[in-house]
């Protein structure tokens, strides 16, 4: 590897991780570099390209979901790990353990009798003016007074080689899952390099974490149910939540999946309520309980459940207080006061500007500091005063003097540098290390490794994933043999059989049910629109297209508009008005129930259930989203393309999704929508016979996609009786109503396997609905309705619409009703009391 390391030049002033200042390689890097050299540059390039492809592919499922349009932002990983020697790691670990102990004691004091404040060890502002101090958390006493079950610490290395702390993460530390993924990718890509470097394994740490969480369970003698609480797909680290849930074998839930009943926490599943014992949360304190905290989000009653000891939340609610940046300058004193020890691991020199002398000290020598927010709730980036214009500088000083307590200053130190793989060469980048500590029965344990984050450029000190920086694996070299621990079940241990699907969160089933409905709604509206467009634009019969007005009226009913909204006299003559109307039905984003809305809702729900649908299905939703945003003027081609996409979605849904309860809900939604919408448009188009019935019948066959079936079967012109038989009664026509009813009945039969009472009601209803259509005698109806409006047919179709709705309500009520939103009740003080309105 001479060729690679030879060109590598460290950056003056920064500690070089890989080499001594004289340019010789540090010994603990040597085995890794030797193996890298054995692969050779070209081989490394090829292997790494393959690895990046696999990251991207996983990335599609495991990515940040912030923007639905952006589904393939890959995780940035560098192939060259940071290598750390065993002795050095020992020093870091001891310091981290001491720090975890300290931060925990700090929380115990501040949520306890606050000696640190009454004895004036800490300025009271750091607690009382700190929104992270949640007073309601004082009532919670976590098991064994451990507030921090998992801690993450950002470390930077000073030019003299000493590691220093930049920041603590005590609330819901992120990144351990990314570290694990990095390890998997690098070790798989360079197996011999990994094997021969004697790298300490990460799995042991996660085994400890899992053991820890099980121990926390308040119910002894039960296998604990542990869940990971995520803020949802919008969270930037959602990938990691889903990843850790899979790796640790826990269910991933959102606040709406949980409910508090009689001070106990339950997850709302299709199989009913399941008790939750331990919550590993990735949700901020503030968003956990709207009753206890000043927020609209969360699970009402969660704090009470925690106070009652019926559920344990890790990290404890309120633990975010310890990561307040303004605490950093006071930690050395706290080490002495709370532990009676000197700190083994120092923080980067930090001043809190809330003290007049410190503020002056910072302003006097502004360029040697990095200015950061003093409290976690202030979301502003770090400022490097040296890079500011004179105006910006004056502005910064003004802001600091106006509100000094909101700022800290950290000494600007050059971060150490490590080699990164860049266009086939090693190139230096600044790095910071995020290390992890977990509580265990036998004290704190440190993850041997961590997440390395790298700067974007060699000359930039900005190290942040959201700014486009990268990441690395951290290899801690073992002193002796590497011990092997895997989280996979040991051979011989019993496999616990779970009945699949029963624990599916009701929220997911609800989402899938509506996804099915909206997809089908979009399809039928598109078909209707396409039929109308054809009649508008293609060559017409000499007498015009008399059925067009009828079709427009039916479209209005299907999109739930007021009838007068669409009455366009002579649609062909008023072509412009007609096209404008149709354009609105497609694209108007204010419309309550048009095609735009159906597609938008499909995409929105698709994002929410993204971890439940296949990658291909997700891609289809993404294309749908693009169609939506494009606002094409070529409506016929747009509709053609959209119908292809929708058909692909239905096909994939059938083929690539496990036919578990989730799928049954989705298909049931699909079928209920199709039965209802078909009944509506048959009612609108067929129950008032007119002189131009034949073109109307042709249009109906076209919309119902049954024209070919009809012609091969009857080989005559369209006429009402055979058409009704095909679209209403024929159980073999997948577009017809009878077919939908059969499937709805089947879905309901399968759902009745879920442990609920009274399910027989909807089974009877579904069965009756099938019989109702079966027994409907077309000929007799025709005789009775002779020469008049088709009242009997109208009655039947209305019956189908109403009963399907009733069925939908029953199923929703039975399985999904507890997925309701919460709202706040308030009383007013003074004034309006007599007849005050509650504020939602």
């Amino acid at each position: 590897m001479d060729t690679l390391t030879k060109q590598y030049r460290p950056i003056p002033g920064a500690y070089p991780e890989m080499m001594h200042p004289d340019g010789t390689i540090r010994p603990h890097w040597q085995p890794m570099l030797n193996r890298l050299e054995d692969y050779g540059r070209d081989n490394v390039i090829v292997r790494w390209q393959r690895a990046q492809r696999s990251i991207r592919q996983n990335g599609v499922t495991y990515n940040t979901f912030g923007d639905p349009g952006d589904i393939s932002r890959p995780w940035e990983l560098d192939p060259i790990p940071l290598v750390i020697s065993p002795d050095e790691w020992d020093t870091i670990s001891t310091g981290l353990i001491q720090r975890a102990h300290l931060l925990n004691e700090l929380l115990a004091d501040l949520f306890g009798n606050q000696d640190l404040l009454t004895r004036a060890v800490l300025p009271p502002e750091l607690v009382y003016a700190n929104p992270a101090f949640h007073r309601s958390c004082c009532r919670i006493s976590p098991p064994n007074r451990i507030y921090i079950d998992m801690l993450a610490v950002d470390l930077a290395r000073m030019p003299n080689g000493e590691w220093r702390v930049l920041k603590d993460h005590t609330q819901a530390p992120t990144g351990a899952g990314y570290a694990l993924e990095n390890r998997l990718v690098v070790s798989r890509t360079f197996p011999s390099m990994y094997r021969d470097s004697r790298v300490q394994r990460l799995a042991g740490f996660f085994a400890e974490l899992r053991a820890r969480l099980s121990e926390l369970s308040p119910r002894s003698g039960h296998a604990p149910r542990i869940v990971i609480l995520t803020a949802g797909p919008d969270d930037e680290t959602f990938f990691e939540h889903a990843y850790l849930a899979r790796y640790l074998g826990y269910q991933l839930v959102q606040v709406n999946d949980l409910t508090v009943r009689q001070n106990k926490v339950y997850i709302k599943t299709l199989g009913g309520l399941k008790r939750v014992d331990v919550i590993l949360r990735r949700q901020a304190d503030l968003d956990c309980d709207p009753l206890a905290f000043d927020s609209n989000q969360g699970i009402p009653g969660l704090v009470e459940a925690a106070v009652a000891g019926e559920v344990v939340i890790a990290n404890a609610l309120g633990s975010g207080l310890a990561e307040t940046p303004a605490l950093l300058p006071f930690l050395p004193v706290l080490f002495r006061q709370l532990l009676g020890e000197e700190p083994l691991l120092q923080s980067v020199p930090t001043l809190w500007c809330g003290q007049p002398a410190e503020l002056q000290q910072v302003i006097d020598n502004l360029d040697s500091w990095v200015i950061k927010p003093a409290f976690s709730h202030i979301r502003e980036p770090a400022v490097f005063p040296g890079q500011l214009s004179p105006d910006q500088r004056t502005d910064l000083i003004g802001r600091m003097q106006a509100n000094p307590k909101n700022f800290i200053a950290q000494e600007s130190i050059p971060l150490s540098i490590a080699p990164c793989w860049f266009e086939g060469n090693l190139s230096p980048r600044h790095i910071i290390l995020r290390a992890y500590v977990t509580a265990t029965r036998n004290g704190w344990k440190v993850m041997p490794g961590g997440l390395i984050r790298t700067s974007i450029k060699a000359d930039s000190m900005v190290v942040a994933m959201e700014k486009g920086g990268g990441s690395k694996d951290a290899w801690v070299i073992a002193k002796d043999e590497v011990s092997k621990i895997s989280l996979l079940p040991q051979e011989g241990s019993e496999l616990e059989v779970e009945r699949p699907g029963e624990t599916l969160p009701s929220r997911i089933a609800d989402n899938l049910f509506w996804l099915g409905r909206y997809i089908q709604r979009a399809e039928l509206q598109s078909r209707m629109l396409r039929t109308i467009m054809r009649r508008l634009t293609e060559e017409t019969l000499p007498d015009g297209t008399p059925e067009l007005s009828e079709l427009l009226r039916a479209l209005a009913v299907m999109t739930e508009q007021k009838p007068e909204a669409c009455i366009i006299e002579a649609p062909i003559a008023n072509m412009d008005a007609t096209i404008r109307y149709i354009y609105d039905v497609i694209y108007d984003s204010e419309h309550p129930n048009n095609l735009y809305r159906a597609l938008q809702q499909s995409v929105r729900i698709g994002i929410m259930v993204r971890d439940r649908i296949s990658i291909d299905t997700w891609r289809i939703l993404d294309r749908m989203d693009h169609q939506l945003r494009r606002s094409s003027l070529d409506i016929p081609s747009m509709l053609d393309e959209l119908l292809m996409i929708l058909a692909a979605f239905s096909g994939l849904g059938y083929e690539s999704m496990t036919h578990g309860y989730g799928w049954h809900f989705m298909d049931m939604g699909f079928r209920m929508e199709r039965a209802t919408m078909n009944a509506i448009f048959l009612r609108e188009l067929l129950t008032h016979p007119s002189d131009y019935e034949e073109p109307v019948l042709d249009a109906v066959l076209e919309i119902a996609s049954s024209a070919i079936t009809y012609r091969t079967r009857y080989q005559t012109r369209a006429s009402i009786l055979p058409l009704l038989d095909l679209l209403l009664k024929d159980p073999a026509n997948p577009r017809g109503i009878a077919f939908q009813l059969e499937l709805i009945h089947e879905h309901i039969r399968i759902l009745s396997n879920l442990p609920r009472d009274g399910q027989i009601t909807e089974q009877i209803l579904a069965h009756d609905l099938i019989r109702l259509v079966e027994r409907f005698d077309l000929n007799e109806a025709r005789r009775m309705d002779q020469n008049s409006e088709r009242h009997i047919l109208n009655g039947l179709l209305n019956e189908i619409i109403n009963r399907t709705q009733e069925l939908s309500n029953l199923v929703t009520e039975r399985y999904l009703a507890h997925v309701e939103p919460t709202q706040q009740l308030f009383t007013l003080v003074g004034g309006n009391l007599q007849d005050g309105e509650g504020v939602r």
Partner: protein
Amino acid sequence: MIYRLRHRTTFEYSQPVTFVYNLLHLKPRDVPWQAGHASKLTVLPEPVVLNEYRDYFGNIATYCAVEQKHEAMRVLIESEIEVLSRPAPQTGGTPWEQSQAELRTLRGPAGTDAFQFCFDSPLLPYLEETRQYALGSCAPGRPVHELAMDLMQRIHSEFEYDPSSTTVTTTVAEVLSHRRGVCQDFAHLMITCLRSLGIAARYISGYIQTTPPPGKQRLRGADASHAWVGVFCPRNGWLDLDPTNNKPANEEFITIGWGRDYGDVCPVKGMLVGGGEHKVKAEVDMIPEQEYLQMQQQQQ
């Protein structure tokens, strides 16, 4: 003076609701000039969980959860409370400019307890406009309590009491610019003013006695929840002032509890699961014991 207090809150929903989680601040806390003789809380439908505790500020809080289908929830508190007269505000005292510095030197739980009321709270962020308004009461060297009394008097005379002007979500900035509001708004405004000067101020929730017009019968449910302000004068302790009525709190005031702002001591805060609209109705009767006994006799 002994009072019979009855405060009934009714929530009516447009659709039945099954789960409601409530946090109540309705029982009077003990303070040196006030003693609760009896207090009875009734929640209907019957809650499955009811837990009474002292909150961080020492108030009596009640958590309760209702878990059955209902169309209306009723919360009734009936208390018998004796209120004694309080010492008149002291003269002399800390000049306002030194308030925070003096507060900082106070040690022990009482000092740090007062200190927490100097800072922004969730509903009351710092506002430059309120500081400007407050400076109108800031003659140099003026003692904290005199400044506070002046501020109270100014708010009372310059702001109009107007129940139609505000809701629970009205901000201090809106109150300041419209110059109108109700007791809660005036209390919030005065607290924000005092805090902008570095003075500790807290929000007090309770009731005030009303007198029926001469010759008229007391109307049932005509009283209301009330809110006023506690100001901390480092040398003399807490001074309670009511900007709505321009007077220090006296025997006519029943104290329920205090906090940084309304959010800490909201009489009834609830979360319900389900859709639909809801309506709130509250009736308060605060009747002096003697009058109460007379009414009882008349009824018999």
